[in-house]
């Protein structure tokens, strides 16, 4: 049994397996029961595909989910797993991750689960930077309860619970995560297997809480919500790709082989779209300790019907994790520790005793 060292600090402490593993080993015997065409299938396939490549021992991986369509996810992976209750997966995962350094912890959640009922647990997990990877399947709708608007639905959304249009304002999950001090924040798309795999691998390798928003199509209740970033004729203008160290350019390719549009600082302090060849185009720095630019980039996402969104890793910075700190305090206290029974006897006797003969 060996331990993974850098460059995968997120997996340090988790035992590895020397023999190669395959996707079949990671596939549970349960019949997958999502609707035909659901984006969840593609995400499951991607996860089953790349998990073996992490080289971890399968029994040291735990998937925790809440309630919702996406939360059935753990049943389909032959690792340890818990399908818990609505919104609480980050809290349960915090207990697992803090109690056991040797466990690789994943949370699978949706926009309702993570951002409505579980919003508090989500932000506090990210604030603490507990070592876990959170996959937030965002389909901008409530699927399991059959089609009410969600906290990421666009204003004016007509649903069963909003027959004349929603008057709610949606969350931008990436903005929320950055505001909650998350150390790793990314966005990817269910249908782009290559990008999805790359982002999830980077998220797993990160030590601390990784929040990955996955645009996920619900073909039944919100079909086409992400067409702009998926369709060949629109995606060049819709996807603003974020790659660390690369200029942020998108749109139709220009003479230099890069997008004819770029992102630059605006006079208001945010960011704006400029010509791709402008000298002001920003070079993406995911490792910038200051989250201001990452936040500004997140605001390029449409709050209404989606026409444009940055995709990629917004932020990936290193800071101390809650679980490492908690374990360190215990390790320090236990250094040179006497026998537990003797310690218990000393403890319960205290200092002020008297003896009756």
């Amino acid at each position, binding site marked *: 049994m060996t331990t993974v060292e850098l460059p995968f600090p997120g997996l340090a402490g988790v035992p590895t397996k020397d023999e190669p593993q395959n996707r079949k080993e990671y596939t549970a015997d349960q019949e997958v029961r999502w609707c035909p065409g659901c984006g969840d299938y593609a995400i499951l396939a991607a996860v089953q595909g790349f998990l073996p490549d992490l080289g971890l021992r399968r*029994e040291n991986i*735990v998937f925790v989910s809440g309630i919702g369509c996406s939360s059935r996810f753990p*049943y389909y992976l032959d690792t340890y797993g818990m399908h818990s209750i609505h919104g609480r997966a980050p809290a349960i*995962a*915090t*207990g*697992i991750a803090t109690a056991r350094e040797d466990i690789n912890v994943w949370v699978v959640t949706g926009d309702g689960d993570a951002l409505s009922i579980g919003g*508090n647990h989500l932000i506090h997990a990210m604030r603490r930077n507990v070592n876990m990877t959170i996959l937030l399947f965002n389909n901008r709708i409530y699927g399991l309860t059959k089609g009410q608007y969600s906290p990421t639905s666009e204003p004016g959304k007509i649903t069963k619970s909003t027959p004349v249009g929603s008057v709610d304002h949606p969350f931008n999950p990436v903005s929320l995560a950055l505001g909650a001090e998350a150390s790793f924040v990314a966005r990817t798309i269910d249908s782009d297997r290559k990008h999805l795999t790359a982002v999830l691998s980077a998220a797993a390798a990160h030590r601390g809480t990784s929040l990955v928003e996955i645009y996920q199509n619900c073909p039944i209740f919100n079909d086409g919500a992400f067409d702009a970033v998926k369709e060949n004729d629109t995606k060049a203008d819709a996807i603003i790709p974020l790659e660390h160290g690369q200029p942020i350019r998108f749109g139709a390719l220009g003479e230099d082989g890069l997008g004819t549009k770029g992102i630059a600082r605006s006079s208001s302090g945010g960011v704006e779209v400029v010509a791709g060849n402008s000298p002001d185009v920003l070079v993406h720095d995911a490792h910038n300790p200051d989250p201001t630019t990452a936040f500004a980039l997140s605001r390029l996402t449409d709050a209404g019907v989606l026409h444009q969104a940055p995709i990629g890793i917004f932020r990936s910075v290193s800071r101390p994790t809650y679980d490492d700190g908690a374990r360190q305090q215990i390790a320090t206290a236990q250094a040179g520790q006497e026998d537990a029974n003797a310690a218990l006897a000393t403890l319960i006797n205290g200092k*002020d005793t*008297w003896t009756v003969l």
Partner: protein
Amino acid sequence: MAKEVQQLDRVIIRFAGDSGDGMQLTGDRFTQESAAFGNDLATFPNFPAEIRAPQGTLPGVSSFQVHFADHDILTAGDAPDVLVAMNPAALKANLSDMKPGTAIIVDSHDFTSRNLIKAGYEGNPLEEEGAGSLAEDYNLSVLDLTGMTVEAVKEFGLSRKDAARAKNMFALGLLSWMYGRPTETTIDFLTARFAKAPDIRDANITAFKSGWNFGETTEAFVVQYEIKPAAMKPGTYRNISGNLALSYGLIAGGVQSGLPIFLGTYPITPASDILHELSKHKKFGITTFQAEDEIAGIGAALGASFAGSLGITTTSGPGIALKSETIGLAVMTELPLLIVDVQRGGPSTGLPTKTEQADLLQAMFGRNGESPVPVIAPQSPGDCFDAALEAARIAVTYRTPVMLLSDGYLANGSEPWSIPDVADLPKIDPNFATETNKTVTSKDGETSEEYWPYLRDEETLARPWAIPGTPGLEHRIGGLEKGDGHGNISYDPANHDFMVRTRQAKVDRIAESLPPLVVDDPSGKAKVLVLGWGSTYGPIGAAARRVRKAGHDVAQVHLRHLNPFPKDLGEILKGYDAVMIPEMNLGQLSLLIRAKYLVDVVGYNQVNGMPLKAAELAEAITDLIAHTTGDVPTTDSTGEMEAVK
């Protein structure tokens, strides 16, 4: 001046002052001195929910009652023999508990017209004379404790305010002299507590000694009292509060099971002490997680249990309401989990610092679906240790959440505790699953070895507990109904009915592991049984003693296990003509007993945020005996003596 020494068998003192006057500390020190002296004792701290209620007002009064004796006692006492009142509000708030002729020592310094008005006095009660006056009705001592304190500590150059703050130590010194308490423990305590502030340390020690010396020299007090050490069972003792004993019991649960403890919790009165205490003991491998809310606290604890820790969450009633859904998940996933509810006055925010027993039905039934949870309750501060260890045993052995119902009276009250020998504590076997447990034959006749997470132990009906990191036993659990044995999701109607009954049967099976109940019926002739649970043990026991002393027969049974009930409870109940159940609620145990055993119990119910009073309860028991046997009581059952050895 040689003073007269009077022998007493027991005394109840109540220290009362403003919440900033240090009355809890004063009471605690007097308690430690009495413990060191060898008296039996019981304490009752009573303080406002506000950290600093407006100074000098009735809501701001904080008090600490200590009952100490030369024999074994069961409660902190109904009414004080001595009241120490540090200001007008403290006098006014506590006077109604004082019987005529009892002693009242008053610090006159704060009896200014402004403070008298704040406390609601029209004139100065200390100056009144004649019929109905304090001086006439009580053994009143009016002393300028603050003034004497300031004078005594002036050499240390403290501000007047800081100097006056040592008045509680002056009062403690005076009372310590009066009752012949040993002073070393308090001087050692002050030395350690103020080690970093020598001026404050010296001022407090000087004030304490000055109070003692004042008692010895003044002509205001001519009598010193002696309360001999109590004859207690052989053993090593310490004074301990319920929350501390409960914390130690949890730690013992970790040590005895070999499981690391994971406490996931959120601060709440009166349970926070347990978080504070466990935070100090990381060397036992204890993780304390102060979560963002009650729900996350129990969620993290359950996650840690899944990962192989002893998951614990601590709270009070409002927190239980928030944790209910996760308790249901623990019932469904059948994982060990300890839920500690230090009950307080409810509903809603209720009375945060006062005691109550009104969460029993919430503990039993406060979840959706058929969701059985074992419930156990400690009966005294020291007993919180054993109850916590027992809760851990049940949780780990039966793979179930367990509700441990303490209350505010137990949490903050204290008593001498016979410290157990660690070698005598029960061992708890986590019995982790390490291997597959089921041979499965496929349709084509091939066999394979599988791990079935819901294949049960025949004796306990507990399911196996395989923790992450165990190769070959990978499995998924969750809140959806599980298929019997294999544990996969099942919507099969017959399976659901079977699993509901099996979860209930598992909890019922715990009764097989319980010892017979102890029936306290000294004469064996009692027709009336008093049945209780939790912190009413003391008042019920004290009331029973009074009743017996008056010549009547009464039996007492006290329940530690409220779900499941011990197997012999039904037979015991049938053996009596009448059963009384005293509770600090409107009859929650009564409801359960009536429902299960069809016994027409008589409730004795009080919900005023305070412990039951033994004298009043004794009267009610005596009335029930008279009613049951047809006898009219001939002796006053409310005599002063609580106990006879």
